[in-house]
């Protein structure tokens, strides 16, 4: 079944808005926890890169984007992680606003 259909079923099952809000709120909370765990992992890995290369991630990203640091594979991975971290922070903010 399509997830949107599942949501429709859920909506029909809980005609009371307060009850539905509670159920959806719990789902959002689960998603939020998953995202926060992922963010923690990203930050741990970013710290590893920062220690290894003696540079803050923000500084690194700016310099990497400006083409000052070369094309080492580690730098690509670091930049990718930094971008994923930025994206997950946005997702977390959206989830926090919704829950």
């Amino acid at each position, binding site marked *: 079944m399509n997830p949107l259909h599942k949501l429709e079923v859920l909506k029909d099952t809980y005609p009371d808005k307060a009850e539905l809000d509670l159920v959806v709120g719990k789902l959002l909370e689960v998603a939020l926890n998953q995202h926060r765990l992922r963010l923690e992992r990203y930050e741990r890995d970013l710290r590893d890169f920062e220690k290894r290369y003696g540079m803050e991630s923000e500084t690194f990203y700016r310099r990497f984007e400006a083409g000052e640091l070369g094309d080492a594979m580690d730098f690509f991975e670091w*930049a*990718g992680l930094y971008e*994923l971290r930025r*994206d997950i922070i946005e997702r977390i903010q959206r989830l926090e606003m919704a829950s």
Partner: protein
Amino acid sequence: MKDATDYLAHIKALIILNPQVVHWTVVREEAQGDLGLFRYRLTLRDGGLLELFERFQIVEERLQVTRYTVFIGRMPMVSCASAGITRHTIRRCQHILITFMITRKQMCSRTDQSALKTSWLSSLQKELTERGNRNAPKTPLRTPFDVPRVRHSARCLARRRRLFSSRVVRRPTHDQLSRLYPIGRTQPHRDSLWSQHPDTLRDALAACFRRADQVIHSRSTGSRSTRQLLGESHAVAGDVERAAASCDACFRGTDML
């Protein structure tokens, strides 16, 4: 492609099924909804190393690669073994491998396999010609693994011998190859199988990886009971067996020919 997990499963299936790859490790792999990245380290049949990185996004079921890099190295086997070190000499540019990478990328984003094969072969030919190879074939190549043998001049060969005399990586012998590939299924045989049945094998393996990823994901989030996980693990094992059976069926089919 539905999402990043789907694409990663696809890539892994392609890597496993590619006869050039004998071993590979996952350095990093992330799938975050429609965003993702991977960094894989591959050991190739000729002893070469290939490290790939991609940062990608799936937009409306279409793949967009936002960052992409590849490093190709050759392991100096003799000197590494004698010195007890694991240093690899990283080099870029090996025309055949670059083309191999391009093929892999195209196979992920295109469905027309015959057009892809033609375009890949023509790009390989173009690449050989552009690199000043006087021995580049004048006639079109017939199969993806029909790679022309490069002939070096005597002066060039002497220079190469001087430079790499102690750590030359030789082409694997027939005995070595038959240890890697079971008897009766020689490498050229597998190469031709790969070119004939890429869809069946790739799809079967991609399905296995998707299932495996789902199981691993549910395990990490703790959202499933152990009983369910066990059942799903068995299902994945079943998928793998079925994929292996379909591979065997393909091999047997052509053995009989």
